[in-house]
């Protein structure tokens, strides 16, 4: 047993750090290349789609290399939320789509030329996938889609939607690539509590798609739940995100709240975080050695959200009154920060954490899934 990275992995980590130095910003700074040049650098280096195999235009990294990459990014505050196209749709295309579909969709995702969103939830079906009613009916050589998708992240900006729909009366489902500009697609903005603009409700009213828009299916209801809610690689790097949040908390505590009580609770979360790191490494190690997984991914999702939410709550608490100001970007830009420089961003991040926890479905559904994992063991 050993914790350290192997020689080649250490070399790789240095390469990653050098890349981040050059294109994101020196270690220990807030970072902040503009999004455009950052993305261009990623594409040019061939690192735009970290989890993809080389044959599909990815870097062909091992699970550990992806982990090293995400950990290094998290430490510098590079946003690590799943990119729908890169992290969710790409792997699904690689797994299910035929060669022609892959040739059509993968390169534009790899080159960041096409943004995707994922349409799963519906007004009458949140986590209950068998209750989904969006229907793709055979229509000439293609399909006609009718239904409503909601809580679609980035729905306002995406050019394409990966849309889950029923494809027969038996309840089988399929994934469709739907052009967001197609006739019959209506997009309505949904404001979220973290002030993030981009979430949408998408209505499909007799939307015509060609036969080859269907790239996965027939699938059983719920079959893809684990893959569609969040990617494995982002789940496996949550401890790195949490570690960065712990650093922020330490700064806040140092300035605003040196009470014994906050210190004690800080230590308690820090121990939890050590546990999460160790859980991630065990999962990764099993993946790497092709051993049976010691526990399901849901367990990591439950644990990491718990820790991130605790950290957020402690941050807010230790800001005291300066947890209140909620200036928008323009006000911040024109008049400067109110109170501590990082307060507004920290509070917003905390709210985002709360929103993100819902993206990958309720804790209760995750526990249902984890229970199925335990129950089949014996």
């Amino acid at each position, binding site marked *: *047993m*050993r*914790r*350290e*990275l*192997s020689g080649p*992995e250490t070399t790789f980590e240095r390469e990653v750090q050098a890349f981040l130095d050059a294109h994101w910003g020196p270690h220990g700074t807030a970072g902040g290349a503009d999004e455009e040049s950052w993305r261009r650098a990623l594409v040019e280096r061939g690192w735009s789609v970290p989890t993809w195999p080389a044959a599909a235009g990815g870097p062909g990294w091992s699970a*550990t290399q992806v982990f090293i990459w995400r950990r290094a990014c998290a430490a510098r505050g590079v946003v690590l939320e799943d990119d729908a196209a890169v992290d969710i749709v790409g792997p699904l295309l690689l797994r299910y789509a035929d060669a022609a579909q892959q040739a059509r969709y993968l390169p534009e995702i790899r080159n960041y030329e096409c943004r995707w969103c994922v349409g799963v939830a519906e007004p009458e079906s949140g986590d209950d996938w068998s209750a989904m009613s969006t229907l793709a009916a055979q229509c000439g050589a293609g399909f006609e889609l009718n239904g409503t998708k909601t809580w679609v992240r980035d729905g306002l900006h995406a050019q394409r939607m990966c849309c889950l729909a029923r494809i027969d009366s038996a309840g089988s489902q399929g994934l469709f690539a739907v052009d967001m500009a197609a006739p019959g697609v209506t997009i309505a903005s949904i404001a979220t509590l973290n002030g993030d603009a981009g979430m949408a409700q998408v209505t499909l009213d007799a939307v015509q798609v060609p036969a080859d828009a269907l790239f996965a299916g027939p699938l059983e209801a719920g079959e893809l739940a684990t893959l569609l809610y969040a990617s494995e690689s982002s789940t496996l790097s949550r401890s790195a995100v949490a570690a960065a949040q712990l650093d922020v908390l330490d700064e806040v505590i140092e300035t605003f709240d040196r009470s014994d009580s906050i*210190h*004690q609770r*800080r*230590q*308690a979360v*820090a*121990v*939890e975080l*050590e*546990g*999460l*790191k*160790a*859980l991630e*490494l*065990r999962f*990764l*190690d*099993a993946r*790497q*050695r092709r051993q049976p997984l*010691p*526990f399901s991914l849901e*367990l990591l999702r*439950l*644990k990491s959200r718990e820790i991130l939410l605790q950290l957020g709550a402690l941050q807010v608490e230790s800001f005291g009154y300066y947890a209140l100001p909620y200036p928008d970007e323009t006000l911040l830009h024109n008049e400067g920060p109110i109170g501590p420089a990082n307060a507004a961003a920290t509070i917003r991040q905390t709210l985002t954490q709360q929103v993100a926890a819902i993206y990958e479905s309720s804790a*209760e559904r995750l*526990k*249902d899934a*984890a*229970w199925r994992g*335990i*129950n089949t063991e*014996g």
Partner: protein
Amino acid sequence: MDFSFTEEQTLLEDSVAKYMQNDYGFDDRQKLVKSELGFSAANWSTFAELGWLGVAFAEADGGFGGGAIESMLMAENFGRGLVVEPYLATVVLAGGAIKHGGNADQKARYLPGIIDGSTQAALAYAEPQGRFNLSDLTTKASKSGDKYTLDGYKAVVMNGPAADLLVVTARTSGDQRDADGVSAFVVDANADGVTRRDYPTVDGMRASEVTLEGVEVEADALLGTEGQGLSIVEQAIDEGILAVGSEAVGCMEVLYKDTVEYCKTREQFGQPIGKFQVLQHRMVDMFMEHEQSKSLMYMAAMRMDEGYGAAAQKAVSAFKVQVGKSGRFVGQNAVQLHGGMGMTDELNIGHYFKRLTIIDTLFGNVDFHLKRFGRL
């Protein structure tokens, strides 16, 4: 990064696991708890024959040169079997102090007996007023000529009743809580002036209150340098934490698995109670606590094997915090989900619960190690 075990480690684990499964039944264990000695001398000889008592010692000292990983694997399985034989007291604590502090002569004098199973030992480190502070000592050792004279009182000495040897901490200089001035001595448990009051413990083991009145020992009973004994004991205690923590991980595994099995078969309200979502989610929480503890166990063991220092101590404290919290949660819920049966003396569940409760207290509880984790 690689979390796999070597072939030797796998063989060792298999050998302990098999013994626990085939030769260490719960009913037999309960008979041992009620016996005069409190454990089985025959089992102890077998442990020695199988080489387990020598795993933790260097080959030069007659052992097998195992490290923290080996100790962890053995202890985890001892936890599954709820072993009452005094491996922790004799090998890990007293043996550990001699291993870390003893010179070649002392190791040659004491370790062979521990390794071949003929010597029982105990570490007498705690005192009533000191709680978990290893340097808070009122027991004193004063030197005159070639001898030290020990006077004082040692609390809850695990395996005290069976011990032939006691490793005793005493103050040779400084104030009551100073880190400097702590010395460790090997004392014959039957020496003049040593009085033991023996008793059973909550978790089915044995311990003693030990009074030392004018106990004379030769100068070569001192382990290491006079006044510098704290680090010796601290290291032995940290290894003890890794061992009892690993035991707790083994206990938790049995508890959650037994609970899942029980909930699948126990019918109430016309169905197995495992069909109720509220119980399923509780069992997921138990599973999660166990896995988190196990993960920190691996990290602590690997850190200890990388070298003893602040990083290892910090990892050990994190592990102990987790084990304290998780052990309580898993223990309480296993009893709860077993209902009436869970609270009986007849079923194993309550006995695992008691061991977990004691493990939280041993060597410092959650609060103590949370503070230590924060300091390091």
